[in-house]
């Protein structure tokens, strides 16, 4: 069985896309439609990698990201952010949150902007977990 990868995105088309790419490249895909569901799946499925969208309703994507990056339990999980917003914008929003008293979080390991090529995604996944 290949390594397990969880996709968290509210757009079912995106989930379909990443699931297909993962299957084609020998990984085991699981999916969640929002941040809360994603957190549940991480606890129950123990994935090696999370592909995360940060622009979801009720900011559940960003919250999940912060959760993963600040909690020790999930320190081993790699994260690829796959988002419609530019990396610069995302980093700036994190900076703003830090200024408002939230604890600072490290930059994401991998950041891909939509729309993304299947090859690029596959390559990034390989770099993340091999």
């Amino acid at each position: 069985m290949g390594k397990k990868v969880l996709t968290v995105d509210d757009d079912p088309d995106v989930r379909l896309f990443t699931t297909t790419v993962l299957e084609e490249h020998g990984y085991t895909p699981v999916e969640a439609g929002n941040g809360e569901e994603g957190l549940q799946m991480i606890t129950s499925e123990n994935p090696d990698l999370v592909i995360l969208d940060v622009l979801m309703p009720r900011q559940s994507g960003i919250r999940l990201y912060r959760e993963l990056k600040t909690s020790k339990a999930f320190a081993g999980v790699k994260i690829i952010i796959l988002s419609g917003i530019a990396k610069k914008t995302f980093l700036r929003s994190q900076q703003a949150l830090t200024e408002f008293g939230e604890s600072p979080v490290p930059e994401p390991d991998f950041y891909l902007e939509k729309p993304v090529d299947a090859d690029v995604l596959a390559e990034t996944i390989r770099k993340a977990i091999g």
Partner: protein
Amino acid sequence: MTRILLIDDEPDLLRVLARSLKADGHEVATALNGPEGLSAFAGQRPAIVITDIRMPGMSGIEVLKRIKEREPDAEVIIITGHGDMDNAVEALHFGASDFITKPFRGETLAIAIRRAEEKIDLRRRLKEYTLDLEGKIEKATRELRRRSNFLTKLIRSSNDGVVATDEELRIVVFNPGAERIFGFLQDDVVHSRYLSDLLPKDLVESFQRAMSAERAFKELPWREATIVSKSGERIPVMFSGSILVEGSNKLGSVAFFQDLREIKRLQRELVRSERLAAIGQTVAGLAHGIKNILHGLKGGSYLVDVGINKNDSQRLRKGWDMIKRNIQRTSNLVLDLLSYSKEREPEIQECSPNEIAAEVCDLMRERVQQEQIELIREFDASIGKAFMDPQTIHTALLNLVSNALDACLFDENTAKRWQVRVRTIAEPGNVIRFEVSDNGAGMSDEVKNKLFTSFFSTKGHRGTGLGLLVTRKLIEEHGGCIEVQSKLGEGTTFSMQLPCRVQGLAT
């Protein structure tokens, strides 16, 4: 004390009198006859002169006359003899202040002198007082002039037009601000024209009523009006006036005018730039929406490729569906954007609002069945045909009902029995109210405030962000308005009111 001149031809009397006066502390000069006396007067300038009336050579009367010529303020006391009453009277006529009759006691003279001194003192004080008064008047006049100048400058400098009239409404003040607004020159108007030459009839009537009103109602509060200038231009102004009274007297009236042309121009600019700003924001949000769609197309074509290469018809199907879905999304986005940016006049025609509402509900039938939401229709039977734009009603209702269904789906409380209620209500004043309410997710105040103002969607990938903006624009173009009430976790109600030129509405 005082300087006194004694003139008498009797040397003994002179000596005695002089001694007595000196004893009283006066400065005394003496002369034995008229001419000597006059010369002594010129030299010494005494305040009081005491002269005998009967003297050889120049008479006392003559001395009196000469002294009075020279110094009208000199006090001259005449010494008369018994039977000299006529002379005494004559002396008084020529300005003598007093006369004493020989023989007299020392006291008599002292009293006469004291009276003379009092007169001198009184005269001096009067002079001082008069001078002082003149000084005060001059000062007060200067102050008045200064204040008057200040007030005049105040009125002249005001950017607002200031027009004041007398009690017959004839113009007495017309400042440069008024010149600019009305186009008349001050000289052409003051004292020659009346308020009725300047203002439209309804404003003049307001003034006339206020002028003749017995009590209160002396103020005409600020309101917008339109005046016609000398050149015939219609100018929007902000106007206010009042009647000037003093006690029960009517002094006149005053009116203030603010030229609103500039403000109105700026308001139009503001509306235009707000819309441009919204479009600018829209462009940013739009780029985001398009990126998502592109991603969907790319993803779809990837799946199709895999499907073809691996002969996997399921993948092929899924990929193709994804592409079709995203083509539809593109189409929706473009249509929304066009609707939002175009200025559109509503196309008023005879239609049936209840029928349109029913149509929209029918369109939703499949979805509500699938998602198990109850769609309730409450249409006001008194609404028949109306003159409105059916497109506006349809698009707006479709957006609101679709949002209501989404609100139920987004609701985390899955135990709820979701309901969406669509109501039409006839209201007085030819207005129809459409209400769409749901008992779904509800909105926080933060979300509610952003609702109509920016490219904002809580629906993640599914919203174009423009739905409500377009809806509001359509409603406003139709002359209506829309408002929202919502409670987080409990539900939302959107309520829009549209005017209708109505036919067949039971009132």
